[in-house]
């Protein structure tokens, strides 16, 4: 099994006619994902390499039965694109767009939470979600993931996720699903949502969590692990040496005062029995050990 998406997921790409949408949308299709439609206002009736394009999400859903959306449009259009998909009944939305104003994110997060509670948003500013061998929505290079489980991966960072997938796959440890929740201050899906889903997924038998400085999501994840997780969790937190008060590339990665430090997060996770690695290489090594001991 996998979480959120599988081989039956039908994906529409908002912005398929743009450079990014075309490149990654077609890469997702080449991976084996059912990419059934594109949506670009004013370009309905055309196609991108055989994928039909519609003017609206509503039309695309009606014509193709798409149940997931990949939002690959610039920051100024992304909020409306997300809401349009939710209104059209799309149940799963991945938004990779970087640079959406935080005020917009807070607004659409709360609109989704109140008006479209059955729609799940992953991102913005995330690499997307991949269930190896089944479905890949977003910009994760499919070749570095390995199908078959038993590890679920959830991460705030893109490239660090690739590093982790690569290291696990090299050692022949597969993944059920890898969710990049993104580095922005208001992620649509958080660590806890993913931990919860992995805990319930029978094929996932261990979870790797990759966090970073800023906010308190990792601390709250630690509490969730203590209260609800039976499966082993291996963690790595980036930004031990980050200077306070500076935005480390990700909008959400900033240490305010003593809050949000990597140290505090690592201590919180270690205190609830999670295995805490000092660097991403070690995280993969520790996970390989955990997986060996599962059998």
């Amino acid at each position, binding site marked *: 099994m996998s979480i959120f998406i599988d081989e039956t997921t039908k994906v529409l790409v908002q912005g398929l006619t743009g450079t990014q949408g075309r490149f990654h949308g077609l890469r997702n299709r080449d991976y084996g994902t059912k990419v059934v439609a594109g949506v670009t206002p004013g370009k309905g009736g055309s196609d991108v390499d055989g994928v039909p394009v519609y003017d609206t999400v509503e039309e695309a859903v009606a014509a193709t039965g798409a149940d997931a959306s990949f939002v690959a449009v610039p920051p100024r259009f992304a909020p409306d694109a997300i809401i349009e998909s939710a209104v059209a009944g799309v149940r799963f939305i991945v938004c990779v767009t970087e640079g959406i*104003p935080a005020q917009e994110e*807070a607004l659409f997060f*709360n609109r989704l939470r109140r008006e479209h509670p059955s729609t799940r948003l992953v991102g913005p500013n995330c690499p997307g979600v991949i269930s190896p061998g089944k479905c890949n929505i977003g910009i994760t*290079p499919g070749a570095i993931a390995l199908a078959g489980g038993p590890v679920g991966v959830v991460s705030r960072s893109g490239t*660090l996720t*690739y590093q982790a997938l690569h290291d696990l796959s090299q050692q022949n440890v597969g993944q059920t699903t890898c969710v990049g929740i993104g580095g922005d201050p208001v992620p649509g899906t958080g660590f806890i949502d993913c931990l919860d889903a992995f805990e319930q997924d029978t094929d996932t038998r261990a979870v790797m969590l990759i966090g970073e400085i800023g906010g308190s999501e990792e601390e709250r994840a630690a509490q969730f692990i203590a209260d609800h997780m039976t499966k082993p969790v291996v963690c790595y937190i980036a930004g031990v*040496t980050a200077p306070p008060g500076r935005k*480390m590339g990700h909008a959400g990665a900033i240490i305010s005062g003593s809050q949000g430090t990597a140290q505090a997060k690592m201590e919180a996770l270690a205190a609830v029995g999670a295995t805490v690695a000092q660097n991403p290489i070690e995280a993969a090594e520790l996970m390989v050990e955990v997986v060996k001991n599962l059998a």
Partner: protein
Amino acid sequence: MDLYEYQGKQYFARFGIPSSPGVLCDTVDEAQSAAEELGYPVVVKAQVKVGGRGKAGGIQLAADSEDVRRHASAILGMDIKGHVVRHLWIEKASDIAREYYASFTLDRAAKLHLCMVSAKGGVDIEEVAATDPRAIARLHVDPVDGLTVAEAAKPVAEAGLDEVARAQAAHLLVKLYDCYVQGDCDLVEINPMILTTDGRVRALDAKVTLDDSAAFRHAEWGELAGSEELDARELLAKEKGLTYIGLSGSVGIIANGAGLAMSTLDVVNQVGGRAANFLDIGGGASADTVASALEVINSDDTVRSIFVNIFGGITRVDEVANGVVEALRRVELRSPIVLRLDGTNAEEGRQMLAAHLSDRIVFEDTMLGAARRAVALAGASR
């Protein structure tokens, strides 16, 4: 981007938030003529983007021209927690009856806006939060609903602001919320928000952090640019469009993706080195971006070795390799480079660089190995 106090007050004014009149000055003479224009007494306030100005002596009351000149010359050039004072804000002195606190920011755990109000203003709010948490009234605001005056009145009353100030404070909070939301701020804070002896509520200080991601819809922010306190390396990086933060170590860092870049700093630290910078070339970086990144790092004379850590996803490693070759053509690199290249088109990238390998340009297979090598080279070339 953080604003100076005077910029924050100007930004507040756009949304109708009252503060005292003042003039921005860069010299003692300017300060004196500003004071005379405003009328005594005035307050001479250091403009630096760091808290604790008052304690450091950066805010002084002046009763006459002699006072203004004395304080202005003492404060200009003063070092406040590493920030050198270049600008003064000369403000008409206020008759203060009470000092309160008000702010809006995002509560990332609740994913709602958070309004905080306290009757204990004019002091470090983190200290109030630690010693007397009940003195801070909190109100969550759902951005879908926005904030009404009636809602804003609740934390104002709960915080125990004086009766005479309450209605004005509630109205001011709504304006502050508008500034926060429509003005695309990450943080707006008034500390202190004062009640004057003649019964008016206004902002005596202003702390505003703008959300850089919203710059595309705020043409007016252009005039605020250039006021950032960046060092020479950071300025050059900004010109080149790179995400760069200067640090104090000797290993220059180039990585793709914020997480991997942060992690690279950590790994360098773990093997006994210290990073000279944080530099994320971003996703899908071109050869030109990579070459620019190397140029920026090369301009930093504290750098003793350079660690290029790339895991290609959208970023293609052959493009990165191209950038390294381009940089070698453009500038003479002062420091040895350790390259760790993995991911999309890594093999092609390594082949392109094979002809350039020497004792100054080396490959390492793993992130950890590369970190060790870079740290060793930084030590050796010191």
